[in-house]
């Protein structure tokens, strides 16, 4: 295996990881602040992708498409929070799971109704397409590199938001003591709507960005959602840092596993069975990673609460 191939795969893993981070950051924030498990977070990812594809189709502008994705997902998030999610904060997790499962059904079928069953396509804009040459002679697609950049920038932005701003202080306070911040005069229900919409916007952004390298279709959100759950279990619930490190771990494990596993099996098997067994096992690798973390540290790498 050449160094170039390896470096490329590391970058792919990193790109996959930062996109997962956009998903899991919102989820973990919503869980940390409101104590809510939201299965419909994948739908917000999908809404972002569809909004971007629709606006890109109308205007041809990728930047407008991204803004549309952010706006549509944030609006959908705020709407759902006010109409449904708000009633679930005091309910047990089972009710939250079921209600948000119902939301998935409604969002998925609603999207199918509006856009039809065929996938849409969102093109990478010309100025971001094509490869760039990195130090060491690695040819790497500029768009994917941009994704890594955007993901890391969002991560930095989130850390600053949480640690430096007034909203961040309220979020942190909300994680530790709900009654206290209410007593201090913070409008809790407004805070919750904002946090939920923020998480939704991040998911929508991820959907739009990923939508340009995959096809945009109904059901695209849930596999990502489940991976984001794996990320959160690994990183620890409620921890943004855990979400970031968990995301990158999962991204790298998945990408590099697909590369190394067949090669590893080829050491003691013939090539075609090695490819079969290797790729089958590679598909399980991140779950094995999750299992190992669970055995060693059941509350996740950075989780405070078990």
């Amino acid at each position: 295996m050449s160094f170039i191939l390896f470096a490329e795969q590391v970058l792919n893993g990193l790109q996959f990881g930062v996109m997962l981070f956009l998903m899991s950051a919102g989820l973990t924030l919503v869980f940390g602040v409101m104590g809510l498990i939201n299965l419909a977070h994948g739908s917000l990812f999908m809404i972002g992708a569809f909004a971007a594809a629709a606006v890109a189709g109308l205007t041809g502008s990728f930047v407008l498409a991204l803004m549309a994705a952010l706006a549509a997902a944030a609006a959908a998030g705020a709407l759902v929070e006010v109409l449904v999610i708000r009633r679930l904060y005091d309910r047990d997790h089972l009710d939250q799971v079921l209600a948000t499962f119902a939301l998935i059904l409604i969002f998925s079928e609603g999207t199918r109704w509006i856009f039809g069953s065929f996938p849409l396509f969102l093109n990478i804009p010309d100025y971001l397409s094509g490869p760039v040459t990195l130090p060491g002679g690695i040819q790497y697609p500029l768009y994917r590199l941009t994704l890594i950049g955007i993901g890391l920038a969002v991560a930095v932005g989130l850390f600053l938001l949480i640690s430096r701003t007034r909203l961040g202080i309220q979020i942190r306070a909300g994680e530790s003591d709900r009654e206290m911040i209410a007593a201090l005069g913070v409008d809790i229900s407004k805070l919750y709507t904002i946090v939920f919409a923020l998480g939704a916007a991040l998911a929508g952004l991820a959907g739009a960005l990923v939508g340009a390298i995959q096809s945009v279709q109904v059901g695209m959100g849930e596999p990502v959602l489940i991976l984001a759950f794996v990320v959160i279990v690994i990183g620890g619930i409620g921890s943004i840092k855990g979400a970031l490190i968990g995301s990158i771990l999962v991204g790298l494990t998945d990408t590099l596993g697909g590369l190394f596993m067949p090669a590893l099996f080829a050491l003691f098997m013939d090539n075609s069975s090695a490819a079969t067994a290797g790729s089958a096992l590679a598909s399980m690798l991140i779950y094995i990673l999750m299992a190992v973390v669970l055995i060693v540290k059941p509350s996740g790498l950075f989780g405070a609460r078990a």
Partner: protein
Amino acid sequence: MTRERKINAGLALALLAFPLWAYFANEPFMITLATKVAILALAGVGLNIALGQGGLVSLGHAAFFGIGGYAMGILASHAQTFDPIAEWPFLIEGTKSMPIIWIVAVLTSGLAALLIGALSLRTSGVYFIMITLAFGQMFYYFAISWPTYGGEDGLSIYVRNGFPGLNTLDPIQFFAITFVILMLAMGFAAMLAKSPFGLALNAARQSPQRVETVGMTPYRLRLVAFVISGMITGLAGALFADLNRFVSPTMFSWQTSGEIMVFIIIGGIGRLYGPLVGAALFIALEHILGGLSDYWHIYLGVLLLLIVLFARGGVIGSLAGRGHAHD
């Protein structure tokens, strides 16, 4: 007889009467629908032991449903090609015999439940939900990326497997098999709820602290419940595959897990007949609304949302009132 028991008896009779009517009215498709209801209800009965009695919100029961399905698919596909599954260390051949398939399905799904449960029960609450969901997804991807048994396309079995003394290809006879298994499983679930184990399990759901202070370990109680639960859902998976004569990774998908849970909730959580009511309503909605609109899942979603927000006892809860303590 309590009101709930009367409702239950009526439900069992209805499930029996509907396919009998269909039989005499020569509507074999309706018999197949009733069979589907019985099988999906069985999957729900399995999950309800973990969820209703143990309070374990497992979003990964598709794993057991799928393992049951693939147990059938693998055994039957080897039997139909006369190609042994393994020749070493000893010869294992495929089979077309339902009872053997069921035993294999129950044992393999029980083993999977033991492994998944042992890991995921180390946590609780929202972690448990996410972890079971993730493990279910693991099986889904594994089934897709393992080409030997059809990969993404799944496996077709040309002739339904056999049961001694019955013609399983006759819809009403196959329905009879599933009906009897469902009744046995519900009888078992009812017995379990009242047994010493059930008492301890139900107490562990309500107050794990209490169970510990009387010298029992909630983890072990839950693990046993999770394994029993997985076994019953696995058996349902084997029957479901036999009904369709087809098994595919879809059986492992997270939607399957969600739908099995939805049966329970529509019917009423922790209610013995909840899964049957839920599965029957689900199939009826699919059949009726599905005929009216391609997007019938929207209505299902709205219905589910309304039940969760406003009618928490489900259908049986609304009809029979609050459940009584088991005395």
